[in-house]
């Protein structure tokens, strides 16, 4: 079995102190991500104001919102929370159990609420 208490270069976070030059690169990356997050938020608000709910365009915009949210979440988790820099096995330990449970929860709640909606619609006076 591969030993996991050994580190490659400076990959272990506590000891991963870096020098000024390396810090400059990291800061550049941070500002880039900031720009991406801001632009996505501006697009979201703009679309939210322009496209009214119930129009033909709305379903696309709605799924666009969800997609953009997931992109934002990905950047925050991978770059700001440094999960992208952790070991792959650790990433999986964090993300996979969560994803399995939540996808299941979303699926079952969508199914149930659709049925419930249909029942209430049927028996509405």
């Amino acid at each position, binding site marked *: 079995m*591969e*030993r*996991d*208490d*050994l*580190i*490659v*270069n400076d990959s*272990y*976070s*506590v*000891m*991963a*102190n*870096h*020098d*000024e030059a390396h*810090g400059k690169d*990291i*800061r550049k990356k*941070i*500002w880039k991500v*900031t720009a991406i*997050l*801001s632009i996505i*938020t*501006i697009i*979201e*608000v703009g679309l*939210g*104001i322009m496209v009214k*709910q119930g129009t033909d365009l709305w379903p696309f915009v709605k799924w666009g*919102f969800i997609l*953009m*949210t997931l992109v934002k*979440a990905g950047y*925050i*988790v991978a770059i*700001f*929370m440094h999960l992208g820099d*952790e*070991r792959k*096995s*650790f990433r999986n*330990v*964090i993300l996979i*159990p*969560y994803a399995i449970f*939540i996808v299941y*929860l*979303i699926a079952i*709640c*969508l199914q*149930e*609420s*659709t049925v*419930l*909606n249909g029942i209430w*619609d049927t028996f*509405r006076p």
Partner: protein
Amino acid sequence: MAGEATKAIDKSVLWGGGRSPFSVSYGKMMMWFFLVSDALTFSGLLVAYGYARHSYTGQWPIGEEVFHSLPFLHGNYPLIYVALMTFILIISSVTMVLAVEAGHRMDKKGVTKWLAWTIVGGFFFLGSQAWEWSHFIHGSAGYIVTESNEKLWLVEEIPHGMTAADVEGFALTPEYKKSDESQFIKGSEALSLYASRLDHVQGANMQINEYGPPSYANFFFFITGFHGFHVFSGVIINIIVFLGVIKGTYHKRGHYEMVEKTGLYWHFVDLVWVFVFTFFYLV
């Protein structure tokens, strides 16, 4: 990766058993585990909100119609205020990650500066949320329930200390937020309907609200309240760590991992808001 590992981890950060699973320190891993459980809680709340909304057959309130005001300004600014709150939180997340970066360079001054800005951002967000809640609870013009149990919305708010008769051009409308003038009930008819009302619903509480079904306000209070509580505790934790930074506790330790761990929590709070913003205000 086999064979690449050459350098042993410093003894001081190994776990009790002398190993360090996933090359992550104990504290950081436990913070991640806590965040996963907290993420499950928030996901549960948001999915419950989606469930309520999806199974509701009537009209569910639309975010941009409910949240369209700015402090000190009159007029219609849909979503601008929430967008502002989102920016405040994103920026405070950025200053936090800059504090973590400065920590990796053992730059005490940098950590102090960026962490201070993060705390300021946190307070700004909390203040914004307080205003948002206050505005949501007090509401605007509201609607009346007529004797025949119909809902009629007031076109204009009755100013404090005035009665309906004092309002120039007092009118009622059967549709929420619709400015179709031909539908308006005006003049003495509107006044007599208002006088014989069973109830005048303004703003929101746990039983009834002017925006939509009661569960809408309940979800608003619970989800944004629970998130606000997280922001509040995050600010407190940041302040405690900030004091440690000033005292030089972490500098003496040789690493600023404590800033990184509180940073994880703070980013998580931002992450949750990204989802609340989408599912409560946009979609």
